[in-house]
């Protein structure tokens, strides 16, 4: 096996990992801070891609489309938290209600998308600046995939800075550890929860908007991405932001090299990794719940 093949496959795996990470990190952030298992998180990936499609159709500018995907998904996420999820916090039936409510949002948002934009798939062109490829030795690397990797890494760096170096970030981490105590110390916890929900769903929207030029914009896309994200979150540890990053990097490379060496069974490889982690360390690779720990 030549070195360039390994590099090409590694870069492919990294680009896959970054898109999964953007969805999974939002999922795990919501679980860690808001204590909600948001089944509908993939729907924000879906909304991000459709908002981007709509904005691009109106303004013919990819960057405006991407901004619309991020902001639109974030706003819908905050509305969902503020008007619906907030009503079930702290109830004895909160667990089952969370599942029912977030699952119902998958159906509602998917049908809303079909109602507004139709059931046929759509496509978005890549921006001109990111159309081409460059060669790394004998390997071609598409500029757009490098863009995805850079954006993913930028989000990681930003999240690290925000969660560890800023007061608000420390409050977010604290709310994942002891929400009541944080409230007693004078922090407006409900606002933190709404904002975190909005940021997390905006990250899902960012993934959807960035993936749209590579994939198709189509109803049902959210359900497809949520499965990989769930695997990543289980591997990394529920509620652990860095766990989502580690899980995504592992799954991206397992998928990528699995396809190269074990093509027939590559699609089950990520499930095998998840099962091994569940047996060896059921709480996930990066310890217990806790955002940014």
């Amino acid at each position, binding site marked *: 096996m030549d070195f360039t093949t390994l590099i090409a496959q590694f870069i492919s795996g990294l680009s896959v990992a970054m898109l999964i990470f953007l969805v999974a990190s939002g999922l795990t952030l919501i679980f860690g801070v808001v204590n909600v298992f948001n089944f509908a998180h993939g729907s924000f990936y879906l909304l991000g891609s459709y908002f981007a499609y709509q904005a691009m159709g109106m303004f013919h500018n990819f960057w405006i489309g991407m901004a619309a995907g991020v902001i639109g998904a974030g706003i819908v996420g905050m509305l969902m938290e503020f008007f619906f999820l907030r009503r079930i916090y702290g109830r004895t039936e909160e667990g089952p209600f969370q599942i029912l409510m977030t699952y119902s949002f998958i159906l509602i948002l998917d049908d809303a998308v079909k109602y507004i934009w139709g059931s046929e798939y759509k496509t978005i062109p890549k921006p001109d600046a990111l159309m081409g490829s460059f060669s790394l030795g004998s390997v071609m690397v598409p500029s757009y995939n490098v863009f995805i990797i850079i954006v993913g890494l930028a989000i990681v760096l930003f999240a690290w800075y925000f969660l560890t170096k800023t007061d608000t970030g420390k409050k977010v981490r604290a709310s994942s550890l002891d929400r009541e105590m944080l409230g007693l110390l004078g922090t407006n916890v409900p606002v933190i929860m709404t904002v975190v929900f909005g940021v997390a769903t905006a990250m899902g929207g960012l993934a959807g908007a960035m993936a749209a030029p590579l*994939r198709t914009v189509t109803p049902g896309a959210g359900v497809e991405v949520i499965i990989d994200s769930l695997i990543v979150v289980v591997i990394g540890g529920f509620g652990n932001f860095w766990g989502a990053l580690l899980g995504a990097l592992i799954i991206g490379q397992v998928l*990528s090299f699995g396809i190269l060496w074990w093509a027939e069974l590559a699609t089950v490889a990520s499930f095998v990794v998840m099962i091994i982690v569940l047996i060896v360390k059921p709480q996930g690779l990066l310890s217990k719940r806790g955002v940014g720990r």
Partner: protein
Amino acid sequence: MKMRFVSILVIVALLMPVGMAFSAETIKIGALYTMTGRGGQYGKDSEVAIKIALDEVNAKGLPGGKKLECIITDDKNPQYAVSVAKRYITEDKAKFLFGIISSAIGLAVTEVSKEYKVIFVGSDHAATDLTANKFQKYYFRSSNNTFQSMMAGAYYLAEMKGWKKIAYIGPDYAYGRDQWMEVKWGLDKLGIKYEVVGEYWPKLYEPDYTSYITAIMKQAPDVLIVGFWGGDTVSFIKQAKPYGLFQKMKYFHPDAGGNYEAMASLVDDMPEGLILSARHHLNWPDTAANKTYIQKFYKAAGRYPSYAAEGAYVGIHMIAEAIRKVGNADDTEALVKAMEGMKIQCPEDPAGFTSWIDPATHQIVQVQAIGTTVKNSQFPPAKYMLGNWKVYPADKLWPNMEYVEYLKKVKK
């Protein structure tokens, strides 16, 4: 006496509308289509084509002045489709079952057709099994099966020079697996020597093919045979293009790669020179019948039809023709006989050829045309259409009883 005569006249006059209503009674067709989600466009296009065909059939007239009527329900999944098919037969008194996009649902509904002895005309789902190893006498198909596409593909490859190594990528379920089996069987039968350097099985609706693309490029096949459909084709082409995959190998996708909606979605992103086909083409054959059909569809829907619409259009005409031959829609056994061997002129028939129903398998027998992508803005928003056609005669593709026997053995 006079009074009695008047009374009889009054009674006759009162009964007349009932009699007329009876003679104008409709014959119901119970159709199932995927109307939402990934295959929803195919269902919607089929619905438009059914309406056009019904208008034509009813305008021409059926025996006894009866009218054809079609009820359409979203098929959702095999279990649900089976329950709707049973309801169509028992409650709606439908004389025919019709349609279906997904082969999995088609395979489930053919069992209902068999059990209730009701004719089922499959208009889209392409699993060869239904007209081969899973054949039952009440099932007919009005569009080609995957074997016909892949056998035409094997002939195309046999004529193509300068290749030896092939790889395959297709969705990991029956539709993808069957196409690979069929093209290899065809190549073997034609005595073509080839080397398989890779097989790749992403899940259906896989969003990211990046790692598959780099793995395929490492294997460097001369020809990449592809078995995707719908949005998966679009995603794969968009993702493979910046890697330069299409300059390194021939992209060969003979069953659904040439679907119009893929070209309309890719627009400028569609590379030139891909070898593709579909079950119906907007620009082949260049006949008045095809043009008229496409114009009627465009007028009714405001868009061009996807391939699925033609199978639905043809299927309705098949049913009408059988009723005309038999004289009624009640004698199912006679209708089956009428359909067997029936000649039916389809929009996709080239000049001098008429599609026909193979009596042994109930599969429509049709010519297949494979082309390469060339610049053509005749059907916007697509900017590429197929051209450089190579045409494969219907009788070279189906019936193929040797393959039917092979399927019976391998799919026991």
